[in-house]
């Protein structure tokens, strides 16, 4: 007996230690896989951000040309009234022409003159108009004014335009000569591109800005959340806390889950058919866009809300019922506040998805070219992702960097929303 058992003893121990080593190795490998996966995702994320940032940063600057503009009183305000209405209507283009003539008196041919004028943006006279209206004291004086250059000049100065190449060159040899002269005189400068953050869309890249799209997105999102959050939470609370479990509620549950998976363009078609064609709501309006996105976000909020409500421990409900709270009090005083962080997370995720949504907005006309900045819920508007889509499609080279910058703005909004979600959750959790 002892002879047979004694030698057999070490064997299992060795076996066991071998197994142990294998187990540790497996565990280490498992962790390594996890770290590798995270490293890979971070690399891709950095690549993505890097490439966007790399393209976008130059959009923060805009080339301007310094011209000596004589605010000619005889031209702008012949009667000397300084009346803003008259100042606004005056011919500022003529001032620009005169300034060019003074700087380049040798340019005589009509074609060349036009080429010279094209170095500046078509928006340049409006900039002068704005200056004169803001400060009538300028009239009669001569000032070095920095006027927005055209997008081609901008691209050339940023080194994004191939120089002098072939037929497709946007800047002719003569223009190149003028620009070089201007640059050497210090009349060509890259300055902060404030128009990008304050202007609406434009056909001219140098005048185009995201503010119109930001305002459109804001109004759309307000409508979307204003509708989807209360309806979603009420639905979730009713279904989870009060509704009897029967065939109808099962059907509703299946359908909510299905609805969450419906392609977003279908909601756009619904908006087109029902809200525009049947109910006659205005096209391209944030109101309609918000309703459509609310329909799309609603299932997400309902599902997240139900999950959050379900996660509230039953012991809390029992405790509240036990001291004589009515079912509504149990929900409103205890269950809903406890579920709120989860509901908010779901809502913000849904809203973030809605903010980045393009397809349904295309169907209801929020893809239109809109210059004016929307002031309320029924003004024609576009949204940030649609603006990105529009610019990405534009042929002008200068729109490329603006597209990237607009993507950054959108990402910035998403980051802000997620931060808000985290902060809201903190605020709710600290109350307990």
């Amino acid at each position: 007996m002892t002879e047979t058992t004694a030698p057999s003893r070490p064997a299992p121990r060795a076996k066991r230690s071998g197994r142990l080593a294998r187990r540790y190795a497996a565990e280490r490998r498992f962790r390594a896989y996890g770290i590798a996966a995270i490293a890979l995702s971070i690399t891709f994320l950095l690549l993505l951000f890097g490439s966007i940032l790399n393209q976008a940063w130059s959009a923060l600057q805009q080339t301007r040309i310094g011209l000596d503009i004589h605010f000619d009183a005889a031209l702008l305000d012949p009667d000397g009234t300084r009346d803003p209405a008259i100042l606004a209507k005056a011919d500022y283009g003529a001032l620009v022409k005169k300034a060019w003539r003074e700087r380049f008196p040798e340019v005589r041919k009509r074609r060349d003159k036009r080429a010279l004028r094209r170095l500046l943006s078509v928006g340049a006279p409006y900039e002068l108009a704005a200056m004169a209206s803001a400060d009538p004291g300028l009239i009669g004086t001569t000032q070095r004014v920095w006027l927005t250059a055209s997008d081609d000049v901008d691209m050339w100065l940023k080194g994004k335009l191939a120089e002098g190449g072939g037929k497709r060159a946007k800047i002719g040899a003569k223009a190149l000569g003028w620009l070089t002269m201007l640059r050497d005189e210090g009349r060509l400068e890259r300055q902060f591109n404030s128009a990008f953050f304050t202007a609406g869309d434009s056909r001219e890249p140098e005048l185009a800005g995201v503010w119109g799209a930001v305002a459109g997105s804001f109004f759309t999102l307000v409508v979307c959340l204003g509708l989807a959050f209360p309806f979603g939470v009420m639905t979730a609370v009713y279904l989870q806390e009060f509704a009897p479990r029967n065939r109808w509620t099962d059907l509703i549950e299946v359908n909510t889950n299905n609805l969450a998976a419906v392609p977003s363009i279908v909601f756009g078609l619904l908006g087109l058919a029902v809200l525009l064609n049947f109910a006659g709501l205005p096209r391209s309006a944030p109101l309609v866009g918000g309703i459509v996105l609310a329909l799309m976000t609603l299932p997400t909020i309902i599902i997240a809300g139900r999950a959050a409500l379900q996660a509230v421990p039953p012991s809390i409900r029992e405790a509240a019922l036990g001291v004589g709270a009515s079912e509504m009090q149990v929900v409103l005083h205890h269950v809903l506040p406890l579920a709120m962080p989860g509901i908010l997370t779901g809502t913000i995720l849904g809203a973030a998805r809605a903010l980045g949504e393009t397809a349904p907005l295309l169907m209801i006309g929020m893809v239109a070219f809109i210059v004016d900045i929307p002031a309320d819920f029924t003004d024609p508007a576009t949204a940030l992702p649609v603006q990105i889509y529009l610019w990405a499609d534009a042929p002008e080279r200068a729109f490329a960097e603006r597209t990237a910058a607009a993507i950054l703005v959108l990402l910035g909004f998403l980051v802000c929303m997620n931060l808000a979600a985290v902060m809201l959750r903190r605020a709710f959790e600290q109350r307990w």
Partner: protein
Amino acid sequence: MSLPDDTTPPEAANMIVARDVDVHYDDKQALFGVSLDVVGGNVTALIGPSGCGKSTFLRCLNRMNDVIEGCRVSGRIEIEGEDIYDRSLDVVQLRARVGMVFQKPNPFPKSIYDNIAYGPRIHGLAASRGELDEIVERSLVRAGLWDEAKDRLRQPGTSLSGGQQQRLCIARAIAVDPQVVLMDEPCSALDPIATARIEELIDELRQNYTILIVTHSMQQAARVSQRTAFFHLGYLVEVGTTEQIFTNPHDSRTQDYITGRFG
């Protein structure tokens, strides 16, 4: 099934009278014709093996079974002569009269103060802030938690230890001034020292409240209760004074259970 024992006091003295109570969970019957009288100002222990329906019976008394889907209660239960399953009875009022303490301490994730103030608030028991403060203090004193909690009323109830949490739950239950307090294995999640404190507390509370306590511990039943009811497989087998049940049970199943032959 249950035999009225000779120690049953006359009906009038009984706080709770249950007659022929059947409970079904969907198709499964959990209680069979339970008839039990609970004497006021007493601690009544409900004992019996797991799954025999003790908690189910307890939940009938404050109608917590109402919120369990598929649960049907039939029979008659009166508290102080009032049929608690009567249509005109307000469940919320009933639950204020019949408080409950659960197996696992379940304070609200709120401050200690708010935990206790919640019941009086929703029932409108305090006219002013001062009155509410008084109720909170009185409840904590009665639950033996005042000395430990008076300096931390604003801290979350969940920051207390397990035994303190359970006493907080008891304080919460008595804050609405109930007549009956139901306790479903209140010590099963606690260590022996905390258990001893709760047992002492139950003994003190007996003067003001009628207490029903479900317990798995024979010793606990013997220590804290004056009367004991033994349940088995959904039937009330035997009820009597604790002394009689533990020293001289009439039913052989009771005998087997208390001597540890099953359960």
